[in-house]
């Protein structure tokens, strides 16, 4: 009885720190240390690139279109379907905004721990990249600006591809 109570307390106490209130519509996550370093890339200086993406609204549409396309994608769809998509969309928007110089704070996990259970392959990552490219083009983001974002995301491949 006592042992069970202690176990329960030990489980609940640290969890309580981050579980306090997950943002609306999101599932609780295990606690982790939040930092912009988790975004996996240094941001560009100045707001020019963020503006080329159409600011918060543009980045929001790009991320939503990329996720929507990817869910329908025969290669990457099944990998994403088990994710907390509300949280995925929010943290991706934060990450892109942060990297593009939009001044957002990234509150998600680092790339390694957020992808460690996905078993992602290069083929699946490339499908995701392609869907991002299509989404950026649909938003009217100039190709050179698209590549500036991709150049920052590309080195994360070694952290996110695990198979």
């Amino acid at each position, binding site marked *: 009885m006592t042992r069970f109570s202690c176990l329960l307390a030990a489980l609940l106490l640290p969890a309580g720190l981050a579980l306090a209130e997950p943002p609306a519509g999101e599932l609780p996550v295990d606690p982790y240390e939040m930092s912009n370093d988790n975004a996996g890339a240094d941001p560009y200086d100045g707001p020019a690139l963020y503006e080329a993406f159409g600011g918060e609204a543009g980045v929001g549409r790009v991320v939503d279109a990329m996720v929507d396309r990817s869910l329908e994608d025969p290669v990457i769809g099944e990998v994403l379907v088990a994710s907390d998509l509300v949280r995925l969309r929010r943290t991706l928007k934060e990450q892109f905004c942060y990297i593009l110089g939009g001044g957002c704070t990234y509150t998600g996990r680092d790339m390694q721990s957020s992808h460690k259970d996905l078993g992602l392959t290069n083929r699946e990552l490339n499908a995701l990249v392609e869907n991002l490219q299509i989404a950026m083009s649909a938003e009217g983001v100039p*190709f050179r600006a698209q590549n500036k974002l991709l150049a920052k995301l*590309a080195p994360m491949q070694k952290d996110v591809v695990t198979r």
Partner: protein
Amino acid sequence: MLTRSILLATGLAAAVAPVSAAQALHLEPGGKLLLTRGISNLEGAGGGALTPWALITGNETDRGIGATAHYSYVTLEDFDVTSFGAAVGFHDRFEVSYSQMIFDTRDAGAALGLGEGFEFKQDIWGAKLRVAGDAVYGQDTWLPQIAVGAEFKQSNQEALVGALGADDHEGVDVYASATKLFLAESLLANATLRYTKAHQTGLLGFGEDASLQPEFSLGYMLSRRLVVGGEYRFKPDELAFAQEDDFFDLFGAYAVNDTLTLTAGYADLGSVALFDKQRGLYLSAQIGF
């Protein structure tokens, strides 16, 4: 009833067999980003139009096997050069290729005393191994994708290329290529260093002494489907009877889809077999999976 069940089972087994075999070998179909398999150069290797790159041909990633086939045509002032062949890429790591290059002398054949429309041909068997780096994803490092390759070339005109001054009608080129995508600048760069004895890539045979010849390519990506660029290929000039010049081209390569890439450009092959200013239209189609 039993017979029907067996037939059905056999049919099902046959239908799923290829999939099962691929799964057993852990092979995944396709997966490369558009254009990152390169096009097929005249000698059949994955790369640019005139020079091999460190990229591995085929749409496969590290978990699959892919392949390409190409047909390329250069129409010059006095000659035509045709190349066709196929190549297989294994796990985005190793590439083998076969290509046949045909040098059609057209009217110039008569002037050279060979007969109108006389053709020099060479067969080219190539192999290329990627040894380091990732041209696409390695954006946080100076390290390019590096590959080493070899090409065994054999002319079909043993006696004639000998009479024209070649030491041999067959030979081996070895090369190392470094390819890097400067993604933030939308630029693609390649440098290749080739060790060769070939006269006019081997179409006119091989000399006694090998030399190191650099080859450079630079491309600018206009979209994920379209890259425009140019190449410069230094060549030996060891043939006694005729001057040999460096190759140069300007090209635009367009990925119609995952399967088909079309390339058009302008090629300047300089002086070839006593005929100067051999330049003209370059066209190439490559299919792959």
